[in-house]
């Protein structure tokens, strides 16, 4: 075990995957010589050569489109979209092509590929560096969607994603690249290297897709969340001394609904929490499933806390972000309901 940041963990996952399998090839905007604007691929070009890790033109469509062709030709592309906010030019290739290639060809052509992208807010990045578009992937049959919340998971889930035979969208909550942000932007951040969750097992240690992780155990309510919001939830639970299950989904598709249902049946109350805009966010799907499976155990309606239904503002970052105060207020209401 070694302490490292999420960035280092991601870099290590690349490094291990590339060393184990010649077919793993890494590319994207600024990922080659420079090593990525968040440095997640730093050193790979030097170590594996420009044929295995290279810079691309600024064309998300081209990045994903060529990756699909490569994946069909026995290469295992791991590509970076510089910010999730810039994935839209590639969306057609993801939805119409990557997601359906196996189906369309009855397995004759497949698309084992990972599309990594930094996601989420909290860095004063405004509308084009803050989005959380996970629901735009979860609605698409044929895509898997992963959101790690710790360095160990980032490493392990990325390894599993690279080894997965199907296309995986890998969303990296950029606000927690360096440490577990609990939503208290006015307090100093504790870096991963000094945090108990910063421990990362050595070597080739994939974490299977589709398994949620209970990050806190309690009796009064279940908080279902993922990514940065895991740490906001944990912070609120600790600070307010709540007795709550905090479920870190880790993978949205395939979804570990059984873990969620087991918890909610026990607690009887459920809060669903994410950064993305509320309407048609992934929280809607979670809520729909929870109310269906746990209806007779619920003591109050499932409550969603999410980003407002507006574009992501700049100055209003902390008004927009569903931080500790908003979360706590809603939990209190939920516990009283």
């Amino acid at each position: 075990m070694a302490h490292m940041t999420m960035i280092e963990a991601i870099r290590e996952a690349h490094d291990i995957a590339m060393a184990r399998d010649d077919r793993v090839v890494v590319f994207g905007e600024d990922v080659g010589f420079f090593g990525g604007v968040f440095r997640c691929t730093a050193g790979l070009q030097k170590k594996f050569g420009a044929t295995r890790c290279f810079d691309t033109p600024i064309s998300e469509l081209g990045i994903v489109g060529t990756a699909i062709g490569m994946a069909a030709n026995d290469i295992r592309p791991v590509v970076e979209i510089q910010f999730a906010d810039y994935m839209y030019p590639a969306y057609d290739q993801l939805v119409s092509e990557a997601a359906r290639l196996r189906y369309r060809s009855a397995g004759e052509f497949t698309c084992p590929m990972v599309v990594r992208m930094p996601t989420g807010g909290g860095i004063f990045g405004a509308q084009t560096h803050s989005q959380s578009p996970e629901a735009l992937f979860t609605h698409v049959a044929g895509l898997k969607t992963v959101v790690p919340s710790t360095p160990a998971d980032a490493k392990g889930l990325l390894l599993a994603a690279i080894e997965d035979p199907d296309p995986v969208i890998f969303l990296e909550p950029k606000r927690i690249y360096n440490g577990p942000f609990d939503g208290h932007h006015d307090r100093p951040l504790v870096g991963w290297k000094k945090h108990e969750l910063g421990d990362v097992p050595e070597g080739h240690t994939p974490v299977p897709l589709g398994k949620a992780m209970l990050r806190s155990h309690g009796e009064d309510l279940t908080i279902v969340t993922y990514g940065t919001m895991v740490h906001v939830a944990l912070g609120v639970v600790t600070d307010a001394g709540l007795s709550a299950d905090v479920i870190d989904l880790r993978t949205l598709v395939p979804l570990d609904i059984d873990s969620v249902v087991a918890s909610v049946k026990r607690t009887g109350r459920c809060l669903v929490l994410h950064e993305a805009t509320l309407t048609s966010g992934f929280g809607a799907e979670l809520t729909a499933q929870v109310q269906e499976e746990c209806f007779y155990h619920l003591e109050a309606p499932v409550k969603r806390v999410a980003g407002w239904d507006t574009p992501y503002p700049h100055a209003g970052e902390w008004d927009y972000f569903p931080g500790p105060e908003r979360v706590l207020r809603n939990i209190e209401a939920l516990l009283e309901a």
Partner: protein
Amino acid sequence: MTDPLRLHVPEPTLRPGDSPDFSGVPIPKAGSVRRPPIDSDPEDIRDLAFTIIRVMDRKGLAVGDWAPDVDDDELRAGLRHMMLLREYDARMLTAQRQGKTSFYMQHLGEEAISCGFRRELVAGDMNFPTYRQAGLLIADDYPMLLMMNQVYSNEGDTVHGRQLPVFYSSKDHGFFSISGNLATQYPQAVGWAMASAIKGATNIAAAWIGDGSTAENDFHAGLVFASTYKAPVVLNIVNNQWAISTFQGIARGGSGTFAARGHGFGIPALRVDGNDYLAVRAVARWAAERARSNLGPTLIEYVTYRVAGHSTSDDPSAYRPEEEGSAWPLGDPILRLRDHLIAREAWSEERHTQAEAEIRAEVIATQKKAEAIGTLTSGRLPSPAHMFEDVFETPTPHLIRQRHEMGV
């Protein structure tokens, strides 16, 4: 300077009711265009994007630098492929009209392009076709029964009735699964070719697109990546003059030709008579050799004419003169190759008539077999259970639950 601005909306010169007239289309004489070395500087061969490379002259003789070395047997095979494709089209069109399937798309007049091109690739190369290159399969001896099964979406369909008719897929025959989204496969072909280079393999890829579809994003992405990484790919544009109801001037805009698009990327571009089987083979060979020699991509514009409707859902008499197809000055690719074979004394009118009959019988026999399995509206259809397979390699618990709910 203060005159009001006006919007320029390109219009074809002729509309229904007008007499077809192609006198404005300059057609260079067969054999008149030079064949440069494959490692030419693109700037030195710019003119090849503004002319039409043609091999067969009016008498059916193969003339000029581009006349490829293809022997009689191979040419007779080529003729047979085109005739098979035309007969296949005719039968499937009728089958659709009879309600045996939902949809069909023909190649009428464009047979030389896919049939000819395929023969210049080798096993292991990969085409990324549109819906109008079934000749790539036929010229590679893909079983026509499987094609029909696909069109009928019956139990014998290798893709389990999941795709619209004519959206074939065959890895073994270098035919990538067809998408219904135009142009998306252009950058994929480039990526496939890049993978070949990454692996140090020798196989190349071929991308396909229609004139209308060059307006799509993906065409640009394909060109950018092919240009940057010198990908071993042949970038084909089939200019059959029409998108659906929209003539090529809408997509082409102010550029003289579609081939010219390559020049903005430093990609050598050839423009070729798409109805001249020999010319198609010649340019395909040139481009494939370039790609295989690590010289990078080539853009090829095939000049042809879509004689039939866009698909069975289309009625071209609503937007163009009816007889335009027969007036098309580049002629019929089958008749032209037939005449060439006759001119080189490797074929005859009689053998042609006989071949027509044989091919018809062969296609009919295959069709009977396919229909014995089933059509979209009768017979053995794929099991609904297939619907839940191949979404992922291993079905998620969620999909297993849905499949149970469906009871299959």
